[in-house]
C-alpha cells in the first residue's frame, strides 16, 4: 500500500437521504460526511441496513425513486456539487468520473446481450469516435482486468462465463472510461474465496496503474485490512468511527467497532463461542434521541441514551462519536471528517 496519495477528489458534507414509506420516514443516511483523496481506498463497514449502500447510491444520485430522496447535503466532486447538477450533466459524470461495481455478478449483466455489447455501450455513452477505436478500447479494458483472449470473449453471453469472469467484466465496464473514483459495493461477496483474493489483487493493481480512488463497501474486516487505507464505520445511518486502518484495528475507539472486530473469529486462538453483538439495530423510522448504539452497548450510561455524542478526534485523524472519549480525546474544529 505504498501508492502516492494525492489531493482530495471527493468531499461529502452532511448527506441526508430519507425514504418515505407508509410506515414513516426512514432516515437511511442521516448526516454522513467524509472525504476521499486521489489514489486512496476508503472502506465503509457496517451491518446490513446501516446505510452504506444508500450513501454511495446518493453519490451517484441513483436512489430508488420515488420513495427515496436526498434531502440535504453536498457532494463535491473536484469542487463541483453533484447534488446541484441537472440530470443530463449528472449522466456525464456517471461512468465517466464516478463509477460503480455492483455486488452480484450473476445479475448485473443483462442476459440477452453479449458482454461486448454491454461493454461497448458504456464506452459509447462517453466517447465519440470511429467504432474500431471504441471496440479497441473495450478490448483494452478487458485486457486490463486480465481476461484472456478478449477478442473472442466479447461475443460471449453472460451465462457462458463463470462468476469470477463476470465480475471482471463488470470491473472492465467500470474502468473503461477511466473514472476518478470507483465505488465497489461488496464486489467479492458472491465469489468463491480463491477468486476473491484474485479479484482484490486485480483491483489493487488497477489502482496502482491508474491512480484512481476506491470506495470499498464491505462487512469483511479481512478485506479492509488488505485493501483499505482508511475505513469508516457506519451504524443506523450515521458514521460512528473513521480513521486510518491500522489505527482502528489496533485501537478501536467506538464500542461498536470494538464489538465488530471481536466478532471476527480468529485463526490463532483456540475455538471459543462466536461472539455476537446482543440486540438489533434500531428501526430507522423510530430512532432514539441519544446514541443509537447505546441500547446494545455494554458501556452505556443514561447520558448516552439521552444525548447524541459528538465526534471526538485524536492526533492521528482518528474520529469517533462516543461519550467515553470526552475526557481523553479532542473536539474537532470542523464538522467534516477530512484527513
Amino acid at each position, binding site marked *: 500500500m505504498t501508492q502516492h496519495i494525492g489531493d482530495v477528489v471527493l468531499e461529502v458534507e452532511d448527506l441526508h437521504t430519507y425514504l418515505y414509506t407508509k410506515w414513516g420516514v426512514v432516515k437511511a443516511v442521516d448526516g454522513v460526511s467524509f472525504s476521499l483523496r486521489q489514489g486512496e481506498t476508503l472502506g465503509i463497514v457496517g451491518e446490513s441496513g446501516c446505510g452504506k449502500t444508500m450513501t454511495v447510491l446518493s453519490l*451517484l444520485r*441513483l436512489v430508488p425513486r420515488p420513495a427515496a430522496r436526498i434531502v440535504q447535503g453536498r457532494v463535491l466532486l473536484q469542487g463541483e456539487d453533484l447534488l446541484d447538477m441537472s440530470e443530463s450533466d449528472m*449522466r*456525464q*459524470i*456517471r*461512468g*465517466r468520473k464516478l*463509477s*460503480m461495481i*455492483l*455486488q*452480484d455478478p450473476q*445479475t*448485473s*449483466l*443483462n*442476459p*440477452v*446481450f453479449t458482454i461486448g455489447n454491454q461493454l461497448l*455501450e*458504456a464506452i459509447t*455513452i*462517453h466517447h465519440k469516435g470511429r467504432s474500431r477505436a471504441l471496440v479497441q478500447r473495450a478490448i483494452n479494458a478487458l485486457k486490463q482486468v486480465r481476461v484472456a483472449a478478449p477478442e473472442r470473449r466479447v461475443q460471449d*453471453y453472460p*451465462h*457462458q462465463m463463470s462468476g469470477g469472469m463476470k465480475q471482471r467484466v*463488470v470491473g472492465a*465496464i*467500470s474502468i473503461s472510461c477511466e473514472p476518478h473514483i470507483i465505488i465497489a459495493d461488496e464486489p467479492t461477496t458472491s465469489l468463491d474465496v480463491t477468486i476473491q483474493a484474485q479479484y482484490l489483487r486485480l483491483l489493487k493493481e488497477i489502482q496502482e496503474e491508474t491512480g484512481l480512488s476506491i470506495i470499498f463497501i464491505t462487512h469483511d474486516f479481512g478485506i479492509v485490512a488488505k485493501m483499505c487505507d482508511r475505513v469508516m464505520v457506519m451504524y443506523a445511518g450515521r458514521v460512528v468511527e473513521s480513521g486510518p486502518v491500522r489505527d482502528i484495528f489496533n485501537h478501536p475507539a467506538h464500542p461498536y467497532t470494538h464489538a465488530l472486530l471481536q466478532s471476527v473469529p480468529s485463526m490463532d486462538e483456540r475455538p471459543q463461542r462466536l461472539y455476537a453483538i446482543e440486540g438489533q439495530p434500531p428501526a430507522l423510522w423510530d430512532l432514539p434521541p441519544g446514541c443509537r448504539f447505546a441500547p446494545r452497548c455494554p458501556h452505556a450510561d443514561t447520558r448516552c441514551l439521552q444525548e447524541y455524542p459528538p465526534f471526538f478526534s485524536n492526533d492521528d485523524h482518528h474520529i469517533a462519536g462516543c461519550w467515553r472519549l470526552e475526557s481523553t480525546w479532542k473536539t474537532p474544529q470542523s464538522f467534516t471528517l477530512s484527513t
Partner: protein
Amino acid sequence: MQRYIVVRFLQSILALWVMSLIVFCLARVTGNPLDVLLPMEAGPEEYERIAKHWGLDKPWFIPQDWSQPFDTQYATFMGKALRGDFGNSLKWQGYTAMNLVLQRLPATLELAGIALAISVVLALPIGVLSAALKDTAFDNGGKLIALLGQSLPSFWLAIMLMWIFAVILGWLPTSGRGGLTHMILPAISLGWFQVAALMRLVRSAMLDVLDSEFVKLARVKGLAEWKVVWKHCLRNAAIAPLTYFSITAGVLLTGSVVIESVFAWPGTGLLAVDAVRARDFQVVQAIVIVFAAVFILTNLLVDILYAYLDPRIRYQ
C-alpha cells in the same frame, strides 16, 4: 435447441391426434345428418342408400368383421384425413370439406392478423409506459383500459361499435369483407381483449425487469433513462408476454367465430357456425382440425422465437 424443437413438434402431433379423435366423436354425436339431408317422406331404403353412400352405416371404431379391421368410420376418417381429404360437404354440394375451409381460411387469417397487429401496436407501448410511469395518471388510465378490455363481451362490443360507427355515424360499412374500412370494426372487436391482456402482461414483466440489477448497472454507466427502458428492459420483458402469444392465437381464432357472425365476414368462423347448424360434420371436422393445426403451429413458432430471444435457452 434441436432437441427442444423436436420434442415440441412431437407433442404437437400428439395434440393434433387427440383433437381429431375428439372431433370425430363429437361430430358424429351431433346428430344424424341424414335427418337434415333427406326429406321427411323418405323411406327406409332411401335412408340406407344414402347412408351407404356416405359411409354412415359403418361402425365407429370396432369393425363388425375382424377380417377387415379398417372397415370402420374412424379408420376411414383417419386414412382420409392424413391425406387431407375430409370428404365432401354435406350442405354445400359440390365442394369438398377441405376445399371450403381452405377457401375461407385466408379471410380469417387476415382478420386475425390485423387484430393481432392492432393489439401489439397498442399494448406494447402502453404496457411499457405504464410500467415506467408507474402509479401516475397514465398508469391508472392504462389499468382501467385493461380492466375494461377484459370485461367487455366481444360480440356486444362488435354490435355497439357497428351501431355507433356504421349506423349512427355512417363512417364505416356494417358488414362484408373488403378493404381497410371493412376491416377496422371487426379487427378492433376481435383484438380488444388481447390489448388488455397483453398490456397487463407487458406491464408486469417490465415492472419485474425494472427492478433488476443490470438495469441499475445500466444507469450507473450513465445511460439515458429512455434507453434503459427500451433497450435493456424491453428485450427481457418481451419474453414473458411472448408465451402469451400462443394463447392469443387460439383466442383470436375462436373469437373470430363470434365476430365473423356479427359482421358477416366470410371466414372459417362463420363457416363453422353455418356448418354446425346444418350438421355438416365433414366440414366441422375439417374446420376444427385446421384450427387446431394453426394453433399448434403458432405454439411451435412462439417456442422457437422464445428460444431465439433468450440466449440462455438457445445454448442449452
